[in-house]
């Protein structure tokens, strides 16, 4: 009864009630006084008891009122300070620099739309780091171009270690170093260090995730940290987060084109009838293929991405060792011609079905939604109720990957209450 009361009327109502009750009791006792001495003793006792009772209630209510207002004050104070995301960027290359440009361009938008403030506290390169506790001015950094090591807060030989990060006060780490396909390093260690220290991670580096997906997820959970790796698969195409919008469906199969280099080469061979070697050379000249293209053309890049897709969307626990991989270098223009004569094209598909992961050239019907040209990526998910769902987009490029990182960053900021 009292508890209900406590949560019911406000402070003024309680005080009014106390005085009203007091007034009634006074009248009651006055009337009773005239009716005999014995009764009046009980009435006085009752009166005192009630006054004490209501006084206690009033004090409790006042305390609660003060407490609530204190909390509000504290909260607003906390909000002002803690809304700031303090970022460490590891890897200031194509993706890293693109991200800083987007962050700079969107600073006002992030503030207006999400009430989100950020500071880039540290930028790590392979040979040292830029560290500024009150935030690096992105504008002047970008103006420095490749000469950023001349900035006064550049520190030679500094790396992303446990000891260091506890002193620089960051709460989010962006991992954008190159992938070592066999070890996942240095990214794997960076991610583990961040998570172990309760720091959230947004990564574009797929190596750690196709090698140690389960371990990373577990570590994040143990440390109450968030880890976002949307940029690792098909760059800006939001395929991993699509899962949240398909929770009523079961995804049963994935078919995808996940490597822009292979798709470019095959598109050129199909359109021009040129041999593989010439198409590869052309891709290299245009910057679509690496000087050493083996990871792409042998299918390992797509295999890594397929592992992440299958683990995330199908709930599997695979690693890159579980993928059957065949590349595209054995495809001839004549084979492409033969395929064409039956209404097919040859595409390098990444497939997850029946507990199996495959990356291999396949004959695809010309009118299939997966038949895309150039460096694009496409993913088709087969679901039990919604049927096939296809997402297509640019699977590479600094800004594309950076935009996916920014999405991840905003998502984590929202979960943490740093953004609205």
């Amino acid at each position: 009864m009292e508890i209900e009361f406590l949560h019911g009327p406000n402070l003024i109502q309680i005080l009014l009630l106390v005085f009203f009750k007091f007034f009634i009791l006074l009248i009651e006792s006055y009337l009773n006084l005239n009716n005999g001495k014995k009764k009046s003793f009980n009435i006085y006792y009752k009166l005192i008891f009630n006054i004490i009772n209501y006084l206690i209630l009033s004090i409790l209510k006042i305390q609660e009122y003060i407490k609530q207002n204190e909390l509000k004050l504290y909260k607003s104070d906390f909000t002002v300070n803690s809304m700031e995301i303090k970022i460490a960027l590891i890897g200031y290359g194509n993706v890293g620099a693109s991200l800083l440009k987007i962050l700079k361009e969107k600073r006002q938008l992030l503030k207006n739309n999400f009430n989100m403030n950020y500071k880039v506290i540290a930028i790590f390169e392979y040979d040292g780091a830029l560290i500024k506790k009150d935030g690096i001015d992105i504008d002047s950094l970008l103006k420095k171009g490749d000469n950023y090591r001349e900035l006064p807060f550049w520190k030679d030989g500094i790396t992303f270690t446990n000891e260091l990060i506890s002193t620089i006060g960051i709460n989010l780490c962006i991992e954008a170093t190159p992938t070592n396909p066999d070890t996942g390093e240095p990214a794997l260690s960076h991610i583990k260090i961040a998570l172990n220290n309760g720091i959230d991670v947004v990564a574009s580096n797929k190596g750690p995730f196709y090698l140690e997906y389960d371990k990373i997820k577990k570590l994040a959970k143990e440390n109450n940290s968030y880890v976002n790796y949307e940029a690792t698969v098909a760059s800006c195409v939001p395929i991993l987060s699509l899962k949240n919008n398909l929770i009523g469906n079961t995804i049963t199969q994935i078919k995808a084109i996940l490597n822009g280099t292979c798709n470019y080469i095959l598109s050129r061979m199909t359109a021009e009838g040129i041999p593989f070697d010439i198409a590869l050379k052309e891709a290299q000249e245009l910057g679509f293929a690496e000087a050493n293209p083996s990871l792409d053309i042998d299918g390992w890049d797509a295999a890594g991405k397929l592992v992440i897709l299958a683990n995330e969307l199908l709930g599997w626990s695979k690693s890159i060792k579980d993928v059957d991989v065949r590349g595209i270098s054995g495809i001839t223009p004549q084979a492409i011609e033969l395929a064409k004569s039956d209404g097919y094209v040859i595409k390098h598909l990444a497939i997850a079905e029946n507990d199996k992961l495959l990356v291999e050239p396949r004959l695809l019907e010309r009118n299939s939604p997966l038949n895309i040209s150039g460096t694009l990526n496409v993913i088709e998910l087969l679901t039990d109720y919604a049927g096939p769902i296809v997402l297509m987009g640019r699977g590479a490029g600094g800004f594309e990957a950076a935009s996916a990182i920014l999405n991840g960053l905003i998502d984590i900021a929202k979960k943490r209450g740093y953004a609205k």
Partner: protein
Amino acid sequence: MIFLECLIPDHPGSLIELIKPISNNHGNIYGILHFHDRKKENMIPVSVNFEIPEELIEASLERLKKELTEKNIHIEKLTMGDKTRQDLIVILTGHVFDTDIVDTIKRLAAKNIKVPELQAKFTEISEISNVKLKLVYPESMTEHDLIQEISSICKEKNLFLIRT
């Protein structure tokens, strides 16, 4: 697809007696299997898979049953399925001819995988060639089994396989 199982006498010409009425009644035959191991009293079980155009099925089957009975061919079973044989297209690249394409087709046929269509592209017979095969396989066989078969031949003959 229509499955016909019947018993025919084990003497020359009796298979023709079975096939003729099928083709006369618009049947397009996909496969014939003789079960010599199940021969009984000089009668051999034979199974024929064929297709008849949708609009002609009813009348054609009636006529077929009548004609076979007249020829004293005993029908054991006559059933219809939507897809008794499925097909898959593959392209083989490598020394497909040098590694004996006839042997490849025979080995597939031994597993009841038919090759009704074949198309090739090559510059010289000794050079790398590209051969497209249409593979038709029975319903009893899974696509996975079919791929296993053709993959193992390709592995052995060092041929690059691309499939639908």
